[in-house]
């Protein structure tokens, strides 16, 4: 069983330190510095112009919306905003970098000193500090597909798409926390309306810096940068692999080389970059084609005020309404679901019961049908689901009948009261009628009455069942139980 023991021992000996650099595409219609469309998936080089092709003489003009979205992100992450933040050039040569430099922010980023609190591994609350958040432009894409003789093709449709880079402090202590941080960050940016954060389309990308240090030490070990992690799962897997690799090397008395490694999803390993990397020297300097970003205090305040409720606040609000943390989390994790739920609350639904009706009954049916809660195919509106919950709460229908009503609502889009009425599903709560049915059941089942009187109390359940059967499930089960007990004396 040494195989299990060794990692635990290693874990005691080494502490993992992780920082993440996350690139997020901003949800703008046009590029950062020109008016070309940012739409995903167009044929190569059809969303280009003199500016993003870096034709001689072209000049950048910043996209106001991109700046606003970046500011929203920085505010959502509680960053300190630099109203005089500036643009810089990062100089390097690569075929998919048309200008031979990237316009970015180096010396004066938009935001510094933020933080993100999230539920880490095992549900424990974790806070990761944000070192900086800055704006920049994306590069183009290189590909070998369809190119003759092993040549490389360059598509510049993505060149100039607005990005923010969010650099965390090395505050993460394990691969699972890293994944959870990334997911929390994604959700925050989704809520703030900053980005559609689709990792599969590359609108959220993550590089990690990983180092191990002796437990109890406060110095950082040699940093290894991991690239090419394309899903939340691969971030965790890559970091787990890298943690193990470094620990094994350190255990063997080796030194960790400061390097960049790529994650190979298929083989499940990281490997060192083959490109002979000269020491990078990006020669940053102030971008002379652009003045300072110039954020007016009123603009910053307006943007701050326009931020919607963010995930942590929504979670807290739901918990205060009595939802268990897990249930609240399920709703918060899906902004469309949470928005649906909020409409139910506004329509008067009880929080706990409404949440259960939504996330168990409605969502179960929708998932089975492959329909989203915000899709037009979902014919049950939040107000209707709230009304259904109200019918249950008032005793008009039973929870069991409610399921049939919901099926009918989904099929027809009708209000629950209409369904109940049309199908005659109104619960029978009339004492006289129920008493009559109870007496009829007692009269028809003398053996059960005898059993009951002989002390077999469960014989009463049979009699209740008979009443429910006779009323086709519509009788209020509580009242039936009471009536049977009363009649049996």
């Amino acid at each position, binding site marked *: 069983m040494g195989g299990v023991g060794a990692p635990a021992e290693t874990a005691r000996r080494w502490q993992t330190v992780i920082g993440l650099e996350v690139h997020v595409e901003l949800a703008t219609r046009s590029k950062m510095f020109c008016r070309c469309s940012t739409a995903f998936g167009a044929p190569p080089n059809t969303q280009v112009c003199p500016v993003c092709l870096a*034709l001689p003489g072209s000049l950048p003009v910043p996209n106001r919306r991109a700046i606003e979205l970046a500011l929203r992100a920085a505010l959502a992450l509680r960053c300190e905003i630099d109203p005089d933040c500036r643009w810089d050039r990062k*100089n390097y040569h690569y075929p998919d970098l048309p200008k031979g430099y990237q316009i970015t922010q180096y010396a004066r980023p938009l935001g510094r000193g933020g933080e993100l609190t999230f539920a880490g591994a095992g549900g424990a609350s974790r806070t990761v500090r944000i070192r900086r958040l800055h704006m920049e432009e994306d590069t183009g894409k290189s590909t070998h597909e369809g190119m003759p003789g092993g040549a490389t093709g360059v598509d510049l449709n993505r060149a100039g798409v607005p990005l923010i880079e969010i650099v965390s402090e090395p505050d993460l202590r394990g691969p699972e926390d890293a994944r959870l941080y990334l997911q929390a960050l994604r959700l925050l940016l989704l809520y703030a309306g900053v980005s559609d954060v689709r990792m599969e389309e590359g609108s959220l990308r993550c590089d990690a810096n990983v180092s191990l240090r002796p437990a109890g030490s406060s110095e950082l070990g040699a940093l290894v940068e991991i690239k090419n992690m394309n899903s939340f799962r691969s971030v965790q897997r890559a970091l787990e692999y890298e943690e193990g690799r470094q620990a094994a090397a350190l255990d063997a008395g080796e030194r960790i080389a400061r390097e960049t490694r790529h994650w190979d999803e298929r083989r499940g390993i990281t490997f060192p970059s083959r490109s002979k990397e000269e020491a990078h*020297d990006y*020669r940053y300097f102030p971008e002379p084609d652009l003045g300072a970003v110039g954020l007016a205090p009123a603009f910053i305040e307006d943007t701050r005020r326009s931020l919607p409720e963010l995930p942590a606040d929504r979670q807290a609000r739901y918990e205060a309404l009595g939802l268990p943390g897990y249930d609240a989390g399920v709703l918060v994790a899906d902004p469309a679901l949470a928005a649906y739920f909020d409409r139910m609350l506004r329509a008067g639904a009880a929080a706990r019961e409404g949440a259960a009706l939504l996330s168990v009954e409605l969502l179960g049916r929708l998932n089975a049908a492959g329909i989203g809660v915000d899709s037009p195919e979902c014919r049950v509106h939040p107000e209707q689901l709230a009304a259904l919950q109200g019918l249950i709460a008032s005793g008009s229908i039973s929870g069991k009948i409610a399921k049939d009503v919901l099926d009918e609502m989904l099929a027809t889009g009708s209000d629950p009261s209409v369904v109940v009425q049309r199908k005659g599903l109104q619960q029978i709560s009339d004492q006289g009628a129920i008493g009559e049915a109870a007496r009829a059941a007692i009269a028809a089942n003398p053996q059960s009455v005898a059993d009951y009187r002989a002390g077999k109390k469960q014989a009463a359940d049979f009699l209740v069942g008979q009443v429910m059967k006779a009323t086709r499930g519509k009788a209020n089960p509580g009242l039936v139980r009471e009536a049977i007990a009363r009649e049996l004396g």
Partner: protein
Amino acid sequence: MDVAPYEWPAHQVRRALAAGQVSARKVAESALRRIDEVEPAVGAFLHLRAREDVLADADAVDAAIARGATLPPLAGVPAAIKANMCMRGVPASCASRVLEGFVPPYDATAVGRLRAAGAVILGATNMDEFAMGSSTEHSADHVTRNPWDLGRVPGGSSGGAAAAVAAGEATIALGSDTGGSIRQPAAFCGTVGLKPTYGRVSRYGLVAFASSLDQIGPLTRDVRDGALVLAAIAGADPADATCAAEPSPDYEAALRRDCRGLRAGLPVELLGGGTAPEVRSSVMAAADLLAELGAEVDECSLPTVPYALDAYYVIAPAEASSNLARYDGVRYGRRAAGAADYVEMFGRTRGEGFGPEVRRRIMLGTYALSAGYYDQYYGRALQVRTRICQDFEAALARFDVLVGPTTPSPAFAFGEKTADPLQMYASDVCTVAVNLAGLPALSLPCGFHNGLPLGLQVIGRAWDEETVLRVAFAFEQAADLTRRRPPLLGAGRMGG
């Protein structure tokens, strides 16, 4: 009319067209004939538009006149454009091999505005490669000769533009000025050259050399034409984030024949030890004339300006090293053949495509920005730039304009300064400080020495081109030098 239309200033072309004394076609034909005559000797152009295209543009002006349309301010005026400004369908090579075959799919804003003002564009003029040089000897194509003395350089980097205007090939021209590249060739060729305030004219479509210093401006026969062209090209442009928002005033209205109520400073640093005696005496005489015209003239000091050349030769190459990174053979221009991978392809494309001066400045700028040297060179130069700006601010708080020489000497001979880059750089000693501070400055003829023109530089406050033009116009009218033409103009002299 005794003189042929090619010799007229633009305002005269406009007047004659309005009066129906001449057609735009006649003016264009006159310019084209003049080009046929003198271009083999001068070599001002890198690319001439097809004759029929030029004439078609002129005919369009005549047709508009015939329709009774309002004459735009530069209607029918033959114009030349420095080959670093984009014109749809006209090669913009920047006199570089690396841009061989590049034909812009768009118009520079200033070029578009010149067209809209009615100018008839003749072609693209020669220059030092990527505007790096002071003699146009660094053109990858051919040298341009000074119309006043064919054995001498026209100055640079807008040497072709200045020579074309001086030789009568074009009535007006657009040049660009990063460290003196309009004013210095204007001085050498005896024309008027105006570098507007940084941000007055859109840089969109101007191939960048040093973005924080580059500015487009006119080269013209006289000051009034300078005002007309500036009015046509100035003003806000949504495509250039550094271009000023405020509307540009009516510059022609600012022209007056006196300098009453104006104070002119004479910075002692601009008349330093390297100044040729003939330049010094001509500038001193000009100062006396300004005083006669009513200006209050006094000496002043710009103590940091002697360091401007050093700051400039760090800042401009640093920006250039980045601006010229895009010439990699991927999207346009020339590509070195047979490279095994992209690193080799980039290196050889750039190594073979750029001439020696451009390579030198790219290396210099890369070094000045590189790790370990940034603070010592680039960072330091930016701090010195602040001090230079402060010097000008203080002086221009006391004076409305500053006057001095444009160049330390008249035009020099071919090959005189090409062997030593530092000597060539020193030709910009009087002009670079103005670019570092972003101020407007104009050069106009203030005298001749051995048949070579000398230039007076008038420097103004930021955004105050009006006062600069007013002082220059008053001086021009009193000195009566701009009507002098180079001997080349003698009819038929260069004809054979």
